[in-house]
């Protein structure tokens, strides 16, 4: 599997080259959000707003009203939790085209509970006019800018930084409200998002080899959430549905799927993998994913529970899986 170093850095500089109306606002986390080189490339379009997020969101609203497209860069948690009233009233209510680039979503930060955006999808799904995107790999990071910029209104993006795996073919770009179909099968439907998709791919590779038919979808748009491929996967799943997210199981992907299933009268089991209505703490990403059951082996357990069968898999079996970038089947079929 290819690991891409800091994919946002060069990509955003290239992307913004012919877009003078794109400006960046930063809240003292410029290099932490991989925007330092952008600042040095376009100093006239970069505005340091200091440790003052409420005001930064207001300034962004004012700039957006005058025809600019502000891309706010800071940690995810500081974009919505501290300044939520400003986000809702200054940006979301007027439907302004502000792009909220939230880094280190969920438990990706070792910064502990204050830095962990574990309820952002829940809160922003409940915010009218808001579009919510969630990146799962380097291709998502590279293509999310076009997706966000095409939206007439505010967009919240859960961004990845640093060493980011490429799970999806580089040409297979993110599309709004379209899940990537990563495998096909009719025993279990698995819907994963963010870094949980990489974990899920390790598990599904082994489980499929053991004969379990798995329809695996990577979800990169949490709102809107009306991709027909999601409902098709749910309807086709013989044993049930599993969601897996780098977020609380309350209000995020799991809740979105539960709402769809209930409203459609799907009448099948749903297992939600995620933070089980708890805060986390400061530790490494892999430690936390294991501690809170967001890892591949936890997904194996969930599948075993649904199909009523044990496969005797170990962590070593999963670690041995070699992932390669896939081309989502959805795209090939849709085209």
């Amino acid at each position: 599997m290819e690991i891409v170093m800091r994919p946002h850095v060069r990509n955003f500089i290239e992307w913004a080259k012919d877009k003078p109306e794109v400006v960046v606002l930063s809240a003292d986390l410029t290099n932490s959000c991989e925007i330092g080189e952008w600042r040095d490339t376009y100093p006239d379009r970069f505005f340091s707003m200091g440790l003052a997020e409420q005001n930064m969101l207001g300034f962004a609203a004012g700039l957006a009203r005058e025809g600019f497209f502000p891309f706010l860069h800071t940690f995810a948690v500081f974009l919505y939790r501290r300044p939520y009233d400003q986000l809702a009233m200054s940006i979301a209510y007027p439907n302004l085209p502000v792009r909220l680039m939230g880094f280190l979503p969920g438990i990706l930060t070792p910064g502990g509970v204050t830095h962990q955006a574990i309820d952002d999808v829940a809160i922003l799904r409940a915010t009218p006019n808001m579009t919510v995107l969630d990146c799962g790999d380097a291709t998502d990071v590279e293509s999310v800018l076009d997706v966000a910029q095409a939206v007439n209104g505010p967009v919240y993006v859960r961004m990845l930084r640093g060493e980011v795996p490429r799970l999806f073919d580089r040409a297979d770009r993110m599309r709004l409200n379209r899940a990537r179909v990563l495998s096909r099968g009719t025993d279990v439907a698995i819907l994963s998002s963010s870094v949980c998709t990489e974990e899920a791919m390790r598990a599904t590779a082994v489980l499929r080899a053991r004969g379990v038919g798995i329809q695996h979808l990577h979800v990169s748009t949490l709102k809107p959430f009306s991709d027909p491929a999601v409902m098709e996967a749910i309807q086709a799943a013989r044993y049930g549905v599993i969601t897996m997210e780098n977020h609380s199981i309350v209000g995020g992907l799991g809740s979105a799927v539960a709402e769809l299933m209930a409203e459609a009268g799907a009448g099948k089991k749903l297992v939600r993998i995620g933070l089980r209505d708890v805060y986390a703490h400061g530790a490494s990403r892999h430690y936390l994913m294991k501690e809170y059951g967001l890892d591949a082996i936890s997904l194996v357990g969930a599948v075993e529970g649904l199909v009523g069968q044990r496969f005797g898999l170990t962590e070593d079996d999963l670690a041995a899986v070699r992932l390669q970038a896939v081309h989502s089947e959805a795209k090939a079929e849709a085209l």
Partner: protein
Amino acid sequence: MTPQAQLDWVAEVRRVARQIRLRVLDHVIRHNGGYLSQACSSAELFATLYLKVMQLGPSQAPLIPLPFPGVPGPDNPHFFTGADYNGPKAPDLDRFIFSPAHYALVLYSTLIEVGRMAPEGLAQFNQDGSSVEMIGAEHSPGVETTTGSLAQAISQAGGIALARRLHGDTGRVWVLMSDGEFQEGQVWEAFEALSYYHLDNLGVYVDANGQQCDGKMEDVMGVEPLAARLESFGARVFEVDGHDPVALAAPAALPPDGRPLVVIARTNPICEMDILEERAPKLHYVRFKSEAERETYRQLYAQLSQR
């Protein structure tokens, strides 16, 4: 300006301010409630802004406000902005950002007195389905930003001022605030940024009436010395008699000097309506306790309208 021209505009501001108070008082009597002390304190401030300070074009909106158009959103082409009452957006024209949305009744009355809205428009105030809302939002006449959650306007105005500088506009951005808003931390974040980016195309007029919902500000949470605090944040501050049109208008005529401008208008929340003293310290919203009390306000209206 000739002495006569000076007299003319000052007289016009005074006349409009008196009419604003009368119109708000009439409304409060009719509807047994309203934000009356805000009209007492800020009538000259609104009149000076609209008649002297702000360079605005003619209203782009219907004299009688249209019904609530639905909220802004990607699927609502019918939405309109209340800013249209303040004229078109143009590089050389000023913008008005109205922060304390609870002053909406005063703003609507001002729009009527300066000919931007028809008197009949006020009949829609706080009526179901109307855009003339009690605590105005950005579809309400004269309102550009949704700032009923107080202290959010100043940051948005800062973003607008920054954008206008980037665009090379010569027009300025005027913000009307109340002193109570300075209790919110966001205001100080905003002044940090306004000073840091030298946004001298932005000016703030503060209705410093010393009042807030719970009563006198000094009994709720003090913000004084407000001028010194703002100066220490890098603002260019003038403290003036908020009922004196000449004093109010003077700072706006000075050439910008790199600092955001603040005019603290020291005002009297019972100005021309001493009868309100009986209700002190709670002046935020007036609702009559009895028909007899209401009658005393009718008499006050009769007195004031004969001046």
